C-alpha cells in the first residue's frame, strides 16, 4: 500500500493537467526496444545522439534496449537515419510497419543541419533524439502549458537536463504500459 501511495504522489506534479493523452494510437510490441543505425546515421556528425537517446530510455524507464547493429530487418523497432528533412523539420518518428495498433518498426529521422541552427547544438540533438524515441513509445507532444521535458517541440530553452529527459509523469505512464 505504501508503494501505491508513493506512486500516486509521483503522478501529481505541477502542470500535469495539460499533458497529452497517453498512449497515442500506435505503441511498440513489447518492453524491449530494439534499434539499429543505418549507414548514413553511423557516418553522420553525431551518431552518439542515437546511443544517448536509447540509453536514456533504458536507464530512466522499465523498458530495455538492444542494439542490433546494421539495419536489415523490418522487425527492428527503430531504424535511425540522418537526412535533410524538408522545410523546418528537426526530426521525425514515422511508423513504417504496423500490426493493428502495434508498430512493428519505425524510422527515426534526424536533420542535424536544422537542429544545429541556434544554440546548444549537442544538447539540442540529444533532446530531439530523446523526443523522437518518446514518440515511438507512445508519448505525444506537450504543449507549453504542460510539464517541462524532452517532448516539447523545437529548440531546447536551456542546457537543463530536464529537456533531455522524460517527465516523471510520462515515465509512470510508460512503466504502467510496459
Amino acid at each position, binding site marked *: 500500500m505504501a*508503494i*501505491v501511495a508513493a*506512486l*500516486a504522489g509521483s*503522478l*501529481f506534479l505541477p502542470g*500535469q*493537467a*495539460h*499533458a*497529452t*493523452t*497517453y*498512449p*497515442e*494510437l*500506435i505503441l511498440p510490441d513489447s518492453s524491449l526496444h530494439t534499434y539499429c543505425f*543505418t549507414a*548514413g546515421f553511423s557516418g553522420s556528425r553525431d551518431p552518439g545522439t542515437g546511443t544517448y537517446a536509447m540509453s536514456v530510455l533504458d536507464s530512466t524507464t522499465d523498458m530495455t534496449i538492444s542494439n542490433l547493429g546494421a539495419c536489415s530487418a*523490418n522487425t527492428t523497432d527503430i*531504424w535511425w*537515419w540522418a*537526412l*535533410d*528533412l*524538408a*522545410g*523546418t*523539420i*528537426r*526530426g*521525425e*518518428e*514515422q*511508423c*513504417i510497419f*504496423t500490426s493493428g*495498433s502495434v*508498430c512493428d*518498426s*519505425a*524510422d527515426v*529521422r534526424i536533420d542535424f543541419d*536544422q537542429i544545429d*541552427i541556434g544554440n546548444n547544438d549537442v544538447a539540442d540533438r540529444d533532446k*530531439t533524439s530523446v*523526443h*523522437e524515441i518518446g*514518440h515511438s513509445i507512445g508519448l*505525444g*507532444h506537450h*504543449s*507549453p502549458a504542460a510539464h517541462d521535458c524532452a517532448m516539447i*517541440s*523545437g*529548440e531546447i530553452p536551456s542546457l537543463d537536463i530536464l529537456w533531455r529527459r522524460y517527465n516523471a*509523469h510520462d515515465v*509512470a*505512464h510508460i512503466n*504502467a504500459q510496459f
Partner: protein
Amino acid sequence: MFKRYIIATLATSATALFALAGCAGSQPADGQSAGGQARGNASSATEFVAAASRGLHLDYDKQATPKAAVAASKLIVRGTLVDVTDGITFGGANAAQAGRASSYGTAVIEVTSAAKGDVAPGGKVYAIFNKSAVTGVADLAATGKNLKVVAALADISKWSPAPGVTVVRPDAMPATGPLYLAFPDSLWLQGSADKTMAGVHAEPADIPAAWGTPKNLDQYWSTLAKAAK
C-alpha cells in the same frame, strides 16, 4: 504471487490516477472522430487530421512570427481541399538512403485568394505535406475533400534528402515549376462544422504568441494577409 498482486494493484491505481490527471488510457478507435462523424464526411477536419498523422510525429522549428512565415513562403493561399493524391517519392542511385517509405501526400487546393504569389482564383495549387506512411491517400481524400484550407508554402524544387537521391514528382502534379511544401505549422484546415481550425502537425495552441491567438481560418488568414502586405 505477492509481487504479481502488487503490480496489478499498481497498474489499476495508475490507470485511475491518470484519468484524474487528465490523461485517458486510450483514444477512440482509428477512423472515428470524437463526434462520431461518419467516415468520408468532410464537414470536420478531425478525421482527416487523425488519419494523416497516424504513427507520424514531427519535431520542427515553428514559424515564430507572421512576417517570418511570409518571408519563408513562396506562396500563401486560401481555398478548398479538392483532392489528396500521391506525394513525392525518391529515385537516384541512393534512393534507399531516403528512408523506408514515402511519407508525403499532395494536397490539391482550389484557390480562392492568394496573399503571396501569383495564383488566380479558381486555380489549383499542388502542395506536398508530411503524412502517415500507414494511411493511404485515398483515405485522406475521402476524409479531407471540401475542407477549407489556408496554406503557406515553400518552394523546395532544389531539395534532396541525401546525396545521390532525387525527388520524383507524382504523375498528377505538374512536371515543371515550383515544388510546393507545406510547413508542419502552415497547413490549416477547417470544416463547416468546426469552430476552430486544425493542422496535421499543429494545434492552434502551438502557435507562438507573436501571431496573436488565431483560432480559426479567418483569423489565421487575416494575420497572414496583413503580414504579407
